[in-house]
């Protein structure tokens, strides 16, 4: 900043006054009046401009001019080394701007994934108010096709930066975990079994593309689904479905046992898995409450007569 000559500073200040959204178009012409500066980029792409002006315009713009100014006629000699230094950082900035652009496109798709997930979740929430009907599940499942389309778009964006899946992974991680939890929950309501990783990939159209579903994300999603089950059991029993706790307990016990096979690190997945035992306990309690009052006897109990005999 100290290198800036007063006249130049004035020019910048005036132009920055004009930088309200309406007058963005006139900016390139203002810049072109400064073309005499050797390192100034005159061909600014539209996305470059947009990116710049979104944030503190003046602060981001001015150092660029300051530095080129200092180099051109500043107080220390513009040796070959400082030119190459300048050049490298210029390259970095372009690279980082490009990846910022990628990120924006990814976020746009993820935003849509999130809102689709919300719709699906809202329709699935109805299972707590009644018995799950096929129509209800169909409605929830209709969103799967939408999600598939969105994941295809995401995969397409990512195909333009190969080998960098995990660079941007954080941008869709938590949304994908919710998607997994909804898909596995829907599937469980339909069939009573767990939708495995490869099947989730298939449903999302990811099984033969570069863009896959991270296994840890899948597992976290399954944990989220397990969190939904206690509430489901409670509401089903209230609605008079007394055999439900037994089925859920069976499933959740198996699921918990399966999770115990994993060697987890001390990370988020571990935390979610540790929470699963509370879901299990809650379901056990409901099962116990129902059973001790002999409410299950009214339903078909062929399957667990053995257990009943033992207890």
């Amino acid at each position, binding site marked *: 900043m100290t290198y800036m000559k007063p006249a130049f500073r004035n020019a910048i200040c005036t132009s920055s006054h004009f930088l309200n959204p309406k007058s963005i178009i006139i900016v390139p012409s203002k810049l072109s009046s400064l073309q005499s500066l050797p390192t100034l980029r005159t061909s600014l792409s539209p996305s470059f401009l947009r990116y710049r002006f979104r944030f503190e315009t003046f602060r981001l713009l001015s150092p660029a001019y300051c530095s080129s100014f200092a180099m051109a006629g500043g107080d220390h000699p513009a040796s070959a080394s400082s030119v*190459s*230094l300048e050049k490298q*950082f210029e390259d970095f900035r372009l690279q980082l701007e490009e990846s910022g652009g990628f990120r924006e496109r990814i976020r746009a798709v993820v935003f849509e994934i999130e809102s689709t997930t919300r719709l699906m979740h809202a329709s699935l929430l109805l299972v707590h108010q009644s018995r799950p009907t096929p129509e209800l599940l169909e409605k929830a499942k209709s969103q799967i096709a939408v999600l598939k389309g969105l994941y295809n778009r995401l995969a397409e964006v990512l195909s333009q930066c190969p*080998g960098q*899946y995990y660079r941007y992974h954080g941008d869709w991680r938590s949304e994908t975990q919710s998607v997994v939890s909804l898909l596995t929950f829907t599937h469980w309501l339909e069939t009573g*079994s*767990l939708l495995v990783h490869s099947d989730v990939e298939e449903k999302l159209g990811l099984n033969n593309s570069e863009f896959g579903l991270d296994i840890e994300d899948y597992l976290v999603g399954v944990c989220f689904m397990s969190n939904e089950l206690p509430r489901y059991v409670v509401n089903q029993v209230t609605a008079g479905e007394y055999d439900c706790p037994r089925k859920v307990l069976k499933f959740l016990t198996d699921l918990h046992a*399966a999770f*115990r096979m994993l060697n987890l690190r001390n990370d988020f997945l571990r935390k979610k898995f540790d929470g699963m035992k509370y879901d299990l306990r809650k379901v056990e309690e409901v099962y116990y409450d129902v059973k001790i009052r002999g409410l299950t006897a009214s339903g078909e109990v062929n399957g667990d007569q053995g257990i009943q005999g033992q207890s």
Partner: protein
Amino acid sequence: MFYTSSLHRITLLASKPQRLHQFAGTKLQSSPKRTRTIVTESAMNDAFTKYTQYLNDLNDKRERVVKASRDITMNSKKVIFQVHRMSKYNKEEVLKKAEKDLAAVTNQYMSRLVKELQGTDFWKLRRAYSPGVQEYIEAATFCKFCKTGTLLNLDEINATLLPLGDPSLEPLQINVLDYLLGLADLTGELMRLAIGRISDGELEFAKKICSFARDIYRELTLVVPHMDDSSDMKTKMDTMLQSVKKIENACFSVHVRGSEYMPLTGSNDPSSFLVGVPDIEL
């Protein structure tokens, strides 16, 4: 009780998943419902065996990468200390030793990391190796600056890593973010170096360090807003500004009170600074 029995069944099934159908079909024909649940359970089981394998492999790999990264950090630090041992008189040999040490870090420890990560998406484990790589960049750029007064470029560093890996696989290339984070740390070392040089009387060198550190800081101000996780970098930028200011202040002090330092700076023999006075006047 329920719990343990089902767990027991699972471990049994895990060893012989392929015989499961037969077993369930013959023994439990009377109860079709049970057959179905066992089959789904085993599908779950098979799937979880796969996940276990995946997680185990990943965790092992991460552990190895973390270890490699720690070794790199430790040995890069040694290189940096070696450079700091430099004085006016032994510059050549100290730097030579530092370069040799750095080459050893590259060949011994960086190559381990390169071999571990080549051909994979190295962004996945970035958090495991990033600290080591940053320290390595710090050491490499520090050495290079002391030797030539210029900044070692990312491309040059990456070029030295290429021969370490298998050419058929996609090689590990240090990414821009780690390079920039490493550079941010470099200023701290430059500050120490500058102070050392000033007390050693090498004022020109100190001035060179000063303008170099300024250049880096200035260039980084432009780049940092575009970095992925700039919060980490922002704190580094603050520390960096502090370092640059310290160098500037030190340079200022000797500039203003330069004459008071003169007797010491001209001396060839540290033990006899009074004898050194005539040297100055020559």
